């Protein structure tokens, strides 16, 4: 599934999308020049538009960090929660009203460090929601500390000699925990990422899309990655579509990131299973058992 054909509506020009879905009175956003969060936010909105979701029934949930500010700019029901806890809030929203479409926007520190436990269990329960990660390998809001996805050896303000910690593949964790849809996109690969988010929203159950993002201001400067364009070019040159990756040797894949749908499986969606339980109990009781 490469989404390079005409099947994905790119919705150009972007200004149409901004007028339709953004709270323009709160723009411009607070993100730094060159930050890719805006690209990813646009991808989410385009996917929503392509699917014709009822915006009154679409909930955007976020935690804390640069990524989480996206919620405030998007004209839906939006809730900016506490650091790492977005998935737990989202679980309550979906459980209480299963007819709502719940989309969580999170950063790598938010979802994989402080929110790691919630990620494991939201994936395990298979609650119907879509998680889009703006994964920029750094804590940007607090000024460039290393995160769980900072590559080993890379510099952060709290890793002045290079991070000793092993870097973290969030999707491997999510798949291991039972996520029924896991995909990787990137800020550079816009059509593919829109397609992956779109399919994630359509998927029945817990879907997670790890979008490789860029933070030129903190990560880029500290690690001499060049400017915003250079960092996007890195994604272009080092991300391999999954179909192509399948034909490559482990040596050839070293240092590369696989792009596309990495995992999809079927499992009962949690809120449906619970509604079924309610119906079953009701039936048993009405028969006087």
């Amino acid at each position, binding site marked *: 599934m490469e989404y390079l054909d005409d099947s994905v509506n790119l919705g150009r020009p972007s200004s149409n999308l901004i007028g339709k879905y953004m*709270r323009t009175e*709160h723009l411009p956003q607070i993100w730094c020049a060159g930050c890719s969060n805006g690209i990813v936010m646009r991808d989410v909105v385009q996917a929503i538009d392509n699917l014709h979701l009822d*915006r*009154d*029934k679409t*909930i955007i*949930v976020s935690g804390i960090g640069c990524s989480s500010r996206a*919620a*405030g700019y998007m*004209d*839906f*029901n*939006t*809730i*900016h*929660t*506490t650091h790492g*806890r977005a*998935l*737990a*809030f*989202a*679980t*309550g*929203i*979906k*459980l*209480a*009203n299963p*007819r*709502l479409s719940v989309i969580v926007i999170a950063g790598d520190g938010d979802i994989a460090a402080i929110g790691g*436990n*919630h990620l*494991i*269990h939201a994936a395990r329960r298979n609650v119907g929601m879509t998680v889009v990660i703006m994964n920029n390998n750094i804590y940007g809001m607090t000024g460039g500390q290393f995160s769980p996805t900072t590559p080993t050896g890379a510099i952060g303000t709290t890793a002045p000699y290079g991070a000793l910690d092993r870097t973290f593949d969030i999707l491997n964790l999510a798949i291991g925990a039972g996520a029924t849809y896991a995909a990787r996109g990137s800020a550079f690969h816009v059509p593919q990422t829109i397609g992956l988010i779109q399919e994630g929203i359509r998927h029945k159950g817990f879907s997670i899309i790890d979008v490789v993002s860029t933070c030129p201001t903190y990560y880029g400067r500290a690690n001499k990655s060049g400017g915003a364009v250079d960092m996007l070019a890195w994604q272009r040159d080092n991300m391999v579509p999954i179909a192509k990756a399948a034909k490559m040797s482990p040596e050839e894949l070293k240092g590369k990131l696989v792009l596309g749908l990495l995992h999809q499986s079927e499992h009962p969606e949690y809120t449906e299973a*619970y509604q079924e*339980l*309610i119906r079953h*109990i*009701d039936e048993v*009781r009405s028969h006087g058992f």
Partner: protein
Amino acid sequence: MGKVVLMQGNEACAEGAIAAGMRLYAGYPITPSTEIAEIAAYRLPHVGGMFIQMEDEIASIACAIGASVTGVKAMTATSGPGFSLKQENLGYAMMTEIPLVVVDVQRVGPSSGMPTSPAQGDVMMARWGTHGDHPVIALCPSSVKETYELTIRAFNLSEKYRTPVLLMMDEMIAHLREGVVLPEPGMIEIVNRTSVVDPDPKRPPYQVEPGQLVPAMAPFGAGQRYNITGLVHDESGFPTNSKTAAEKLMNRLMHKISDNYDDIVTHEELGMEDAEIAIFCYGGTMRAALTAMEEAREKGIKCGIFRAITLWPFPEKELEKATRHVRRILVAEHNYGQMVLEVERVVKGRCRVDFIGKYFGAVIAPADIMKRLEESNDGISR
């Protein structure tokens, strides 16, 4: 008049919550509150409600807040260690004005403490646990029946004032079983939040309309697309760094509770009319105080009881008035001395304030209180 049923405190809490309209419970197992979760898990699907066991205490309160945002009444229950963990999102619910009931069945602390032993050591955490200044309503039952009633009241207050309400139980009442007569369903007063019926997209979601106590709340999914944030926000619901907006918000959050003190605060007085000595207590400690008072009266000691039902706001006006003529107040609580500080603050040195506390898992017995009541005036004073 309903029939008499034998009920445990935790059970009364779960049943009271369902009677109040709770339709989502999110929790995590912890002694001595677990029965609340167990009963909720069994009962909720029978009334079309939902139970979920979350991965931890933090997620439990977050899940309950999420449900409440969609218009569903929600609750979580825990004990000391879990109550510590919930403080973060408790502050979030206070700041964002999301109705919610949080139950803390207190046990001996700090840390893991004594999981099965009673205490009342979380009452100051109930007031000051989450960071920053914040409004608090905390209720404290002293019988199984009152647990049922106060759980309903906790929901009603949370809906009315759009704020989380704490039900501060203790292990004594949580695990006590007694015969209770529950009110008929039709006889229970149920308060529901003022919901936005016909959403106007231009209406600032945090604007208080004339004659309203709090902003009307639009459930997520009902058509008003607005933003909720734990950051300081103005009436539009969007974050702001304006000092004026921050001051206005904080004042409104604090005043919605303090201005309605008379509506919120309740207490009980027994024998205070002619009392020379007052026992100040709350929660399960009331049981020993009652027996001690009866014994003291038989021995000619003019003793009365002042019981706080609302711990926060502290019933300061009532306490001040009720104790004007006493020469001594004996504060009995299951901790190292917490609410005694409030009593001293209210009394302002007008009379002696003594303290009896047990903070090591033992229960204050009537004899313990009796001994202190019989002390002469020059007994050990705080």
